[in-house]
């Protein structure tokens, strides 16, 4: 699964052992399979549709954010603002469909606008990230730190830090609805994963992202419009965050600008890292990120369902990242 694209012509170092390439290619998938086998043996009521349902619905928002993060990381950057952008979209949407800003003639119009405007706004803030980073050559970790801090403040100012509670099935469809028995947020997740994977592997845009991440100067010299591509990538990350923010509030029937998306940036980066994508950019796989997120989710589920306390869960999560880094080093050396 962990297929990586290398646009720059460089010789991949040969690996001495036979196990090496197999591990780096299928290691995360094997880890996921092992986890599932472990749960089948140990966890009560594991082999049920409900388990699949719970895990997929819980992981959906992290995967959606992590897909955006994968593209950013592929371009050699990082996006710390994703959680705050989730909060901005989450705080704004209910104000729209509850007619707190302007009164819409019909509920459906309000709900439709509540889907579009907050996500676009999050995308615009993402674009702002990209503009800071390209126009002023701010390092991505610093450039996105600005909205990581300010973004939550902006979200809080929408609602005066109050939690907005609602019961609007038309809007909450994206968090609670189902198509042919499949939760809507899972469908959204799959669509975004497939779309991003296709963009990264098959389109010029995708190749250009990887080229920039691999060697920015070389990409610039070969005619890639580096600044524009980067701005787009951060905007996409913003859009993904906006969608995730809406799903979270739809699921909870409440928008709490203080808490929505808190710590998500780290979950998303962890998913990318566990999936096996190098944080230095130039190589990336969206499917690997999906597997990475599923592993983290399943570990959390396993520990929780078996009564292991939270503190231990955090340590195990860190252990997984170390394992992923170790696997990557095997490829690099």
């Amino acid at each position, binding site marked *: 699964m962990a297929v990586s694209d290398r646009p720059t012509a460089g010789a991949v170092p040969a690996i001495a052992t036979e196990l090496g390439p197999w591990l780096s290619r299928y290691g995360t998938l094997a880890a996921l399979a092992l986890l599932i086998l472990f749960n089948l043996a140990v966890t009560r009521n594991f082999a049920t549709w409900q*388990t699949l349902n*719970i895990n997929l619905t819980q992981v959906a928002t992290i995967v959606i954010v992590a897909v955006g993060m994968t593209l950013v990381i592929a371009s050699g950057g990082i996006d710390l603002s994703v959680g705050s952008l989730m909060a901005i979209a989450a705080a704004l949407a209910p104000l729209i469909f509850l007619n707190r800003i302007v009164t819409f003639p019909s509920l459906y119009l309000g709900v439709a606008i509540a889907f579009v405007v907050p996500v676009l706004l999050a995308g615009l803030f993402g674009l702002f990230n990209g503009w800071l980073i390209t126009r002023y050559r701010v390092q991505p970790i610093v450039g996105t730190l600005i909205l990581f801090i300010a973004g939550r403040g902006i979200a809080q100012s929408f609602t005066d830090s109050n939690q907005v509670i609602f019961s609007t099935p038309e809007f909450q469809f994206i968090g609670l609805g189902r198509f042919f028995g499949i939760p809507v947020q899972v469908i959204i997740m799959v669509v975004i994963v497939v779309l991003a994977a296709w963009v990264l592997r098959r389109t010029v845009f995708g190749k250009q992202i990887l080229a920039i991440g691999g060697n920015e100067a070389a990409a610039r010299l070969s005619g890639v419009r580096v600044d524009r591509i980067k701005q787009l990538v951060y905007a996409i990350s913003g859009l993904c965050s906006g969608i995730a923010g809406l799903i979270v509030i739809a699921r909870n029937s*409440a928008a709490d600008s203080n*808490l929505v998306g808190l710590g998500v940036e780290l979950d998303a980066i962890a998913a990318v890292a566990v999936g096996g994508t190098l944080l230095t950019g130039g190589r990336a796989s969206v499917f690997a990120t999906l597997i990475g997120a599923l592993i983290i989710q399943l570990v959390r589920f396993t520990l929780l369902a078996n009564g292991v306390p939270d503190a231990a869960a955090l340590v195990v999560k860190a252990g997984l990242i170390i394992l992923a880094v170790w696997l990557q080093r095997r490829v690099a050396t």
Partner: protein
Amino acid sequence: MVITVSRRAFLAVSAGLVVATAARPTWAALPPLKKKDVYKVGFAQTESNNPWRLAQTASMQDEAKKLGHQLVYTDAAGSAAKQVADVNSMVAQGVDVIFLPPREEKPLIPAIMNAKKAGIPVILVDRDVDHSLAKPGEDYVTFTGSDFVDEGKRVAEWLIKAVGGKAKIIEIEGTVGSSPANDRKKGFDTALKGSPDMVILASQSGDFARDKGRQVMETLLQAHPDATAVYAHSDEMALGAIAAIEAAGKVPGKDIMVVGVDGEKAALEAIIAGKMGATCECNPRFGPGAFAIMKRYADGETLPTFIKNEDRFFDASNAKDMVATAF
């Protein structure tokens, strides 16, 4: 009775007394409060990022207005350092008395000492400080707040009665290590001791947040489908648990009884809708109580070191009448 004190112990104790007296020249002298009609009162709020804090601030402001006092209000925005600076600036402004919810147990001590040195009495609200560093009745007037252990106990007692002493319980804890989480667990678990058929199947943290509480409940309900009750350390997590129960195709309030703590408006609405059993209030309305303490102190009364802020209890019998007064 013969008391023998060794020479060494006597020396050690007296040396300790000398050091303590020398280090604290104002030992045991709480600054008095003059009797006046109008006071200039400082309220150094710790943060304003949740409904509970907003309700607390509103209560202080309303009561000050009602009594005609002048309120100097600051918001430390979640920073202990800023809160120290806020208190010091109130001292510089020469307020008569300071109400302080100390963000953390130790960092606020210098601010309390500074106020004491300037002759301004400090009353702690909703959170206390480390008693080894500052003593109630000595360095500050008193601490007034909720009794978290009692909150857990009252919820447990209601639940035992509601389910006839027999339940399989999932407990969703607050933030690991926080005093409300520790104490609400202690109060609840202790109260269950006398009922052997009240079994806690699992107990995990939901971080006091609705989203996390929902996810934890989804997972625990899958592992323990035989659960018949949920005790959440906050109403937000209880409401998250209700969403999880509904998603699993069960009926909250019927298949699974849900109880919480905090007494927020949304929880009372859930009680009215029959989805939730009961909740014990964690009262944010400190205004009337705090200003009454101030008056008692000005009258020269010797106050206890802890004054409990009374919490109400909500269930189906009173939720409808009380919902308008919930925060």
